[in-house]
């Protein structure tokens, strides 16, 4: 791990910290003095440790208490400490929040998954370093983008979007301005929403499938393949879209090697994502499924039913001479 040569300074209140903040911004530790003992213990073993101080570079550190009893005397006495801090959506203790020098929250970490289980929060220290490094990179890239133009600028801004911290506000707009026709596909990459794509394919606004709905498998296959081939998109998004295709194929009674082949493609694209890691499991679960009807038979049956329903409804309306508008 590479630590900064500087040790972080500490401030009494969030507002003071913001006033003192340089390019490394402010890192706030939220704890619950009257309800969460672990977060209080970590104040010493993690928050005030030398290792954290080194990892935090030039960031200003501040510990902010969150009281359960907000009307207690102690809570009132300490209310000024977090005053001015943006609504942190604080829900879990302990939490570490990262702010840039303008007070914009760019990252947060909550609970043992981020902090680690040991008293020194070794994992948490690593993450502080990681997020801070990402902030510095973000600042450098943004400065570089300021002096660039056109597609070059779009390319730099796209790198900013890939950092493991929250992007600056208006990043997408800046990319669109730099590459108005989206030749490089970065705007598409950021705007793509795999869940919305899926809901569109399944003709649902909220994820609940209509019992009468039967997707157009041929169209879905075509659309999913197109997304999967789009290199501009993130690999996890492409995998997600392809997962829908795999799931629908299974429902269409496609089986054996054909289904396994689809699963393998997801793994091949990026074996490290969660979807990539699931491939062996899916091979076991679905690769050996046996269906009685062929995909073609099933499709024919589905289309027949669908057409019949539609015809029935239309016929009824015509018979009754009802116009609906």
């Amino acid at each position, binding site marked *: 791990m590479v630590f900064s040569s500087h040790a972080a300074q500490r401030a009494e209140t969030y507002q003071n910290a913001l006033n003192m903040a340089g390019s490394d911004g402010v890192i706030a530790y939220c704890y*619950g*003095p*009257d*309800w*969460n*003992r*672990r*977060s*209080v*213990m970590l104040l010493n073993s993690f928050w005030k440790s030398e290792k954290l101080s080194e990892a935090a570079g030039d960031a200003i550190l501040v510990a902010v208490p*969150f009281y*359960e009893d907000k009307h207690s005397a102690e809570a009132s006495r300490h209310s000024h400490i977090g005053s001015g801090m943006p609504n942190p959506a604080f*829900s*879990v*203790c302990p939490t570490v929040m990262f702010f840039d020098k303008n007070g914009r929250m760019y990252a947060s970490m*909550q*609970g*043992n*998954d981020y902090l680690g*289980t040991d008293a020194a929060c070794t994992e948490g220290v690593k993450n502080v370093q990681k997020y801070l490094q990402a902030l510095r990179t973000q600042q450098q890239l943004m400065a570089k983008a300021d002096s660039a133009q056109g597609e070059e600028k779009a390319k730099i801004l796209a790198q900013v979007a890939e950092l493991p911290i929250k992007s600056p506000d208006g990043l997408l707009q800046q990319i669109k301005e730099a590459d108005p026709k989206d030749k490089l596909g970065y705007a598409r990459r950021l705007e793509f929403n*795999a*869940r919305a794509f*899926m809901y569109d*394919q*399944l003709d*649902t606004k*909220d*994820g*609940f*499938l*209509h*019992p009468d709905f039967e997707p157009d498998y041929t169209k879905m296959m075509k659309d999913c393949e197109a997304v999967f081939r789009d290199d501009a998109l993130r690999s996890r998004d492409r995998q*997600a879209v392809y*997962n*829908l295709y*795999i*799931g*629908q194929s*299974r*429902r269409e009674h496609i089986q054996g090697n054909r289904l396994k082949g689809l699963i393998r493609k997801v793994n091949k694209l990026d074996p490290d994502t*969660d*979807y990539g*890691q*699931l491939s062996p*499991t*899916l091979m076991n*679960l679905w690769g050996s499924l046996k269906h009685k009807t062929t995909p073609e038979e099933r499709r024919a049956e589905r289309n027949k039913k669908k057409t019949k329903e539609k015809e029935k*409804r239309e016929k*009824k*309306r015509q018979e*009754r*001479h*009802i*116009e*609906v*508008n």
Partner: protein
Amino acid sequence: MSRIKPSHALLLTAVIGITAGYLSAPSLLPLMQHGLYKVYEQVEPSPVTTTENEQEVTTPETVAPAIQPTPSITATDEGDTPPTVDDDALADDTEIADFPSLEREVEDDDPTGENTTPNSITKYQPRVPIANEADKPFREQTFTGKGATTAWNSPKTLKRNLGAKVRARLKGTSQQDVENLLLDPEVRLMLTQWELLNRSNLDDLEKVMRNAKSRDALTPLLNDLEWISGFVYDGELQNAEIALAMVAHFRQVDPNMDKAVTHEGITPCPLLKRRVAGAVAAEFARQGWYGEEKELTREELAEMKKLGYFMPTLPGARSRGRNKQDVYRAARERYLYFAESIDQGSLHSKFWQLPDWQLRYVCGWKGNSPFGTASTMRWLRDNCAAPASAYVSMCSQVPYLPTNVYGDSIHSEWYYQPFDVLYPGNFAKETRDVGAVCGGLSHFGASSACANGVPAITMGEPGHCAYAVYFDGSWHPANSLNPEERRSPHWSIWGEYTWSALQMQEDMYSNGAITRDAQMAISLASILADQRNPVHALPVYELAVQMQPLYKPVWSLYMEAAGKSLGRRPRRWLGVNEFVCSTIAPQQSKSCALLLQEKVYPGMLKALRSPKQKLAAFESYFNNLSTAEKEQWNYRALLSMQYDSLGKALAHKERYMQMLVDTVAKNPDFGPWMAWAVIAAHAENKSFYKKVVAMAHDAVARHPEAKDGISSGIIRGAEEIGDIELANLWSTSYLNSGTNMPSFEPLGGNLISAGGLVKLGSYADDQNLVLYHAAALTEKGGSISSEPNTAAHVTVELPKRENIGGMVLVGRGALSRRGYLVVEISTDGKTWKHLVELSREECGKEIVRLNLKQNHPPAKFVRITDNAISGEAQIDLKAILVYDNKKAK
């Protein structure tokens, strides 16, 4: 004090324990002459007045062996050594006499059958706060019996002896006598031990206790008053012998159970782990939760068997295909999770101060759910620690996704299965990452609270799953879509699955000390009832009722003990009624109503002889109402029960209706009750119906501020019985609803729906919406809203039968959020003709015009049904406009 020889003691106990409360002081003279009074001198003679009947007490045939001296309690300031009491006699197996017969004819307290003055039950005023007083010498430490370990070898004998010893100490059944008795911690311990035995399978318990290891592990707990009283009384106790075997098991796997755990900044709670063990065991034994893990392996089974305990089999274990030890393993894992969390101090700081009944909710959290495994709870503790009030929104960490990334529905087997491999043993994290619908969200929210030591439960609602979290002294619903009457907690420590029962528990425990006294009084009464003359138990049960009327089990026992005697005492019944109404109704109209319906009325309405007396009883309820419940509840059941009991004579019913109307006029929040009045009056005859409506008019004239409340009730009632005229009359002043109606191209015909009648399958929570039903049948627009998820259909009765030319439906943004509407017509309201089914696209519009171009079927009724999927159906329209096929005028 020297021990008394059995021969003397037998006689002594009979005299002191049995007759002290009933005999006058002169009757003690013969005893004094026999030199026996020296033992009795420590017991103050009871001031109970002797009645003629009581002097007829016969001398018992057998006499008790020994009377226990006052416990030799030595409370030390340091609290190092717990005070002890000589408890050897617990092992004594000598027969002890019953109370002498006090059976006597209960006098009829109202021979006329017209007296409406209640023979009152006074509100319980404790002479001393018993529980607090009794615990005084033991604060900061625990009251402990000396041991008498061998006594537990034979639970049957022990139970008999405990009952006898308690009876021997009871001087009478007056409030003062019972209070005096309950002041003695030794008696409290004996009562609790007796109650534990009373709830156990004594044969199985004997097998458990004959094992030296388990007996040694359990005896300290069974002699610890604080522990055993929490274990026995703070929640339903079933399969007690299994729960005890579990606790013995916990003690062996955690030798540090009794070790004090202290953490800086947390108020210590000595022996917290003991209490946790009791809470876990009580719930797992009661519920029979086997956990989610696979069955025990052969090695694990061998390991369990090595422990050498007798582990009673949970009823039904075999039929559920589980090893009998599985339930012990599941409970052990749960106990160890909390023991570990206590050692680490990683739970919410309020956990350390939770009373036993709340510990039951936390530590007994669904052992049959994948959210209840130790590994899942560990992750929730470490990643979802929040202030108690924040748990109501903790469910929002889980994305609401009815289909997973593979397009598989939440209802299919494939929703989670592919992901299981990434989240071994951690269903909470899997849910957070993969998604869920209401059930997963609510279980996530509730389990995260329990895993962190905050009480929470999940609840069923029609087509939905919600949860509730306990903090700041009450239950708070979370992720809930329905009014409280439709919430059913999935589990409860008292085995009652309604929201109102939860609230009653909450109220009951708001005075925990009195509740505990009442529970002990019940145990005392049960000991008396166990004897030949159960009538002795009656005054003690009645005292327990007075102490804590919200503790429901006492009512059943009281009524049972009262038997026929209350049937001859209508004025006493009025007293019971008055007592319940005046103590509960002002704050909790619903809890009071439930208690009256379930426990008081069934007996009282049989006993009261005249409608006049019944009216007096009902008036007591109405007069004591002050705050209406915010949400709907089944008040109609109560009102119908009262009304139907008045017989056929309309004069009394008229008086009843007037009482009801006056109540609503004084408190318009009870407006919906008028709907019931309209329906009930309509069922009688036309003139009575008119009278009730006239009463409502009169009430509005006297109380203009109650107009909306009364009107909404009248309109709703009129809709339910189909009285178009009445509904429209009361809707006249609400025709300008101020609804923002979109413009639309008119259909050719004349509007024929105006002046019609709306009737919903279910009614929305906001009763005032009913006021704008009539407006919704006009082009000005109004509001027609059903309750979400329930009977989502609306019927419009047209003023007269006409040929339909078309319809315009106006929605609130869209006609249906999630479903598709079906429109039907009928000429008689019984046979329906399908007219049209609107597609999902059409339902997404704000306005839809149905133009019947050629056929113009006749209709008197139009019905619209939302056939939404997934239980999300709801009628929510601004207008239903029906036009004829004639040329517009």
